[in-house]
């Protein structure tokens, strides 16, 4: 190899390695934030319904603080290179998406849309190609929420909230219907989608238990659900 050519290649590779380090620094910051989010959200399993709003309020500043790290990442990534580096931040981004989605469900029982999750985390549309929330990560986030809700259905009952499983059940089934509309190929998303049915089964068992014991009446819950949707 021509020494000049080899030097050039080495320089380029060295540059890329340094670039990766810079991205990683931001990703570590991002990761720390998502840990705080998930540890706050983990408390929903032991928090009575009345105290949930206060818990969600505590999340807000963490979400807001993500704006800064999102901007830093967007600035670090060269134009059109989002997919070159994306693996570095996929894990924290999915975790953050999960947190926003779960918090939204706990607030008003709805599924936050992709643009609204991006907005909450401070990811701007104009950063597309550098740093963005892609549908794949959003969908992974949704599946994590359903995984978590099957656990919450159980724990809500323990805490005396017998309506929660019914709300969760309706939500999970709608999400399942949504996923069934996708033509998934044999990839990670498909494998995780396949786990949804176990979550739904678990949730149905809880619903069965509370209705069988007349802890909640189905007709009441049905009107409750309808008024929400």
């Amino acid at each position: 190899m021509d020494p000049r050519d080899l030097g050039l290649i080495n320089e380029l590779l060295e540059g890329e390695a340094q670039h990766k380090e810079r991205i990683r620094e931001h990703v570590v910051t991002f990761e720390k934030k998502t840990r705080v989010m998930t540890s706050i959200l983990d408390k929903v399993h032991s928090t009575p319904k009345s105290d949930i709003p206060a818990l969600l309020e505590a999340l807000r500043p963490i979400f807001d603080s993500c704006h800064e790290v999102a901007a830093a990442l967007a600035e670090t990534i060269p134009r059109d290179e989002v997919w070159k580096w994306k693996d570095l931040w996929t894990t924290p981004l999915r975790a953050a998406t999960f947190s926003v989605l779960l918090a939204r469900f706990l607030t008003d029982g709805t599924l936050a849309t992709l643009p609204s999750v991006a907005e909450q985390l401070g990811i701007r549309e104009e950063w597309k190609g550098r740093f963005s929330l892609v549908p794949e990560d959003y969908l992974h986030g949704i599946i994590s929420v359903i995984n978590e809700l099957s656990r919450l259905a159980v724990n809500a009952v323990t805490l005396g909230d017998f309506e929660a499983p019914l709300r969760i059940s309706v939500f999970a089934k709608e999400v399942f219907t949504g996923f069934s509309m996708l033509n998934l190929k044999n990839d990670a998303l498909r494998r995780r989608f396949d786990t949804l049915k176990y979550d739904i089964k678990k949730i149905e068992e809880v619903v069965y238990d509370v209705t069988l014991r007349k802890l909640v009446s189905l007709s009441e819950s049905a009107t409750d659900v309808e008024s929400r949707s």
Partner: protein
Amino acid sequence: MSPTGTIPLAFESFREHLDEHYDRRERLIKASRDITAASKKIIFLIHRVLNEASGDDRALSLRAAEARRRLAEVRLIMENVAHELDGARFWRYAQNISGGLQEYIEAFSFFHYVECGGLVSYEQVQANLSDGAGQPLFPVPLSDYALGISDFTGELMRLAITSMSKPNGRTRATQISEFVRGCKADLETLTPHIHDLYKKQVVTTQSLRKIEEAAYAIAIRSSEYELSPWMLDHIVSQVSEDKES
């Protein structure tokens, strides 16, 4: 059942997004396979040309023209899929086409070596994979360049081994192993940055050993006896057959 809410509606756009992604990925994987197959054929063609190499210059230049034409055809496959790889898409699908791209670089550098001598540079590869206006079809990843070059040295070693058993082939074999040694040393400096290159370097070392041992056999035998060139060729061909099996 749940009331049909807005959630399934939102998934319609995701279905479109995912279908488009899966279809594009499929098309690129297919293109990559086509590129690989066609590039392999070019490599075999060059091997045949060099092995048959007779004194007939006209026949040789005809075969060279054929190799050049076929390379242009493979390049065209890449030009035709380049629109699927524009902007941010390239890095999304880079791994799906990198197999074909590496094979093409291997064939291209082999042809370059035979035509011009020496190693094709990264810039020359990128220039080849650019449109008429000199705009790159897509950025050639450095890793694909390095891995393609490493595979190309493997082809050279094969060429050296087959040359050795031929009359007058030993000079070529010596030149090639010198060249490959140089390439290997250069690539060595890149291994910390390029995944998979290390494994290929091990293979290159093995082929170098093979040819070094064949050269050793020649040196030993020629020092022991006053061998006729014909006998020498015979011995060498036996050694290289042993090594290949």
